[in-house]
């Protein structure tokens, strides 16, 4: 699949039923979104060009010399399946983090577990966050390191990750799976259809003055 971009007009809510491609492992638990993209790169008013800053401080020293990091390694250039460990994406709610990963080329993230806001932000971009047990994930990371050119197939609907002769029994959170598989992850369009009911809910709340609720048909 190709990553949907929100750069032109109405965002498409295309169906994301599967992601296939080569992998890139980034090991370690509790990798926070400050590591994924340091705050200084967020002084921008668009998400364009954020891909080059993914994991920046892990990839470069003070003199901008490359350090050891999978995102710097030639063999992983072109990879689109990021394989991580536990509690990935914790900390700041910055959507800049999944935006940077997506713009670097990542179409799906596979890991032991994800922080909630990060997983929600990925869904809003049509990027699945797929979980599996620690042993399976570590085995997949080992495999990717040994076979950087090998294809990994993620079946979002069937909740499986397939590589070599191995099929991992994975989990895609229910709402996320439904949204991706049915192409209803564009929640702006989805919720915009219920504008009348929204106004009704707003008017039912004692703390919302009538003047704060737009007129019907407005």
């Amino acid at each position, binding site marked *: 699949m190709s990553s949907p971009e929100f750069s032109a007009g109405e965002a498409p809510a295309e169906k994301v039923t599967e992601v296939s491609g080569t992998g890139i492992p980034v090991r370690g638990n509790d990798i926070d979104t400050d*590591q994924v993209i340091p705050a200084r790169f967020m002084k921008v008013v668009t998400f364009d060009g954020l891909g080059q800053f993914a994991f920046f401080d892990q990839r470069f020293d003070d003199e901008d010399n490359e350090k050891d990091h999978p995102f710097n390694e030639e063999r992983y250039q072109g990879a689109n399946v990021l394989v991580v460990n536990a509690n990935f994406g914790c900390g700041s709610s910055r959507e800049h983090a999944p935006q940077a990963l997506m713009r670097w080329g990542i179409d799906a993230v596979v890991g032991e577990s994800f922080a909630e806001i990060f997983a929600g932000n990925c869904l809003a971009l049509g990027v699945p966050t797929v979980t599996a047990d620690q042993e399976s994930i570590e085995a997949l990371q080992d495999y990717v390191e040994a076979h950087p050119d090998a294809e990994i197939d993620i079946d979002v609907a069937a909740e499986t990750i397939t590589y070599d002769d191995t099929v991992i029994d994975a989990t895609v959170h229910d709402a996320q799976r439904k949204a991706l598989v049915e192409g209803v992850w564009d929640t702006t369009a989805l919720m915009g259809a219920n504008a009348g009911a*929204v106004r009704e809910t707003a008017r039912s*709340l004692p*703390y919302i003055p009538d003047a*704060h609720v737009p007129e019907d048909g407005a």
Partner: protein
Amino acid sequence: MSDGTLYDKVWDRHKVTRLPTGQDQLFVGLHLVHEVTSPQAFGMLREREQGVAFPKRTHATVDHIVPTGNRDRPYRDEAAENMMAELEENVRGSGIDFSDPDSGDQGIVHVIGPEQGLTQPGMTIVCGDSHTSTHGAFGALAFGIGTSQIRDVLATGCVAMEKQKVRKIEVTGELGEGVTAKDIILTIIGKLGTDGGVGYVYEYAGEAIEDLGMEGRMSICNMSIEGGARAGYVNPDETTYEWLRETDAFNDDPEEFERLKPYWESVRTDDDAEYDDVVTIDGSAIEPTVTWGTTPGQTAGITEPIPDPDDLPAEDRDTARRAQKHMRVEPGDTMEGYDVDVAFLGSCTNARLKDLREAAAFVEGREVDDDVRAMVVPGSQRVRDAAEAEGLDEVFVDAGFDWREPGCSMCLGMNDDQLEGDEASASSSNRNFVGRQGSKDGRTVLMSPIMVAAAAVTGEVTDVREMEEVATV
């Protein structure tokens, strides 16, 4: 028949419908906006040729990039100036109220909402900032969202969410001398872990929580996200109502206060409500607590030894080893005596008037250590003005602190306030991630405002309780 927890009740009142994804569409009662996470959302809206659905339920301020020194426009930092200009254009074109620096109301978004009375019990509150959980201190359901969700809220007044489980965290007993709300939340995260709250909303209860003022409750709810819980709340009570009465929303309109109070009372968790999980923590056993590592869950009481990674659960060992190497600490040592170069008193966790008062009371008559650069960054212009009216600025300045303009500042290092090189900071903020305070070799030790004050004076992490004894001799 129980209607459940505050979370259940507020959720039900704001639920518009069930979406095809199985998520609920929730109406958002208050949408707070700042300059860093909103410009792309406004951009997406323009591309879709949509307007802001509920501008009067939206409120903006500038905090993350705003300078805390010279604030003359244009800002010296061109990128910061661009972001500020973009925000001004976005909010003014949409009819959104804006607490800008000229208004006298500017400040950190999680400080200004509560102080202006925008934040009220029983509301749903969102902001493109993970520390939105702060507002739960008022019995609101408040959580951080990403930029695409900001677009959702701007365009529809709603978010799509799944309901989560509720964990009650009961903090019993009375806090000891020198122990604050910050120590409670650092202890909770240390016990339950940085991902212990994933899938949960935290309800904070118990004597130690009820005894806290609103500032303390905000410090605790603020760091819910550091424990993995997207939201945390305290049921509203007289303490909450006392705060609300003094805010802009009600100080001239006691009738409106009385009109809304029954709603606030009605959303309190029922006595017979059932929780998905209950955790009890003995508040009287909590010490002044600090972090020794690079996640907010790596904490220790000031007299407790830093753990040996080999003694930790398997999944925590690598993170602990990396953290101890970065921080240059050894298992078995305590954090007491850890040298600091910087003392930062600020952030949405701890930069309210009470925090400043407590730190100032400690600092008065003392001097900042020669090797420490110390700064106070009030949470808002109103906090700054109120502190100056009490003379707190003079106390800090006389002691050797820099007294600055409000903003997020060195909590995340998006303006000029940053650690340099491998400086170590005693910080009243919320995150000790590697690089968080602006230098990737910088070292952050999280602690309460009075512990920051003590570290500023001694130049090292210090047990504030011992200092107080010295002072009274």
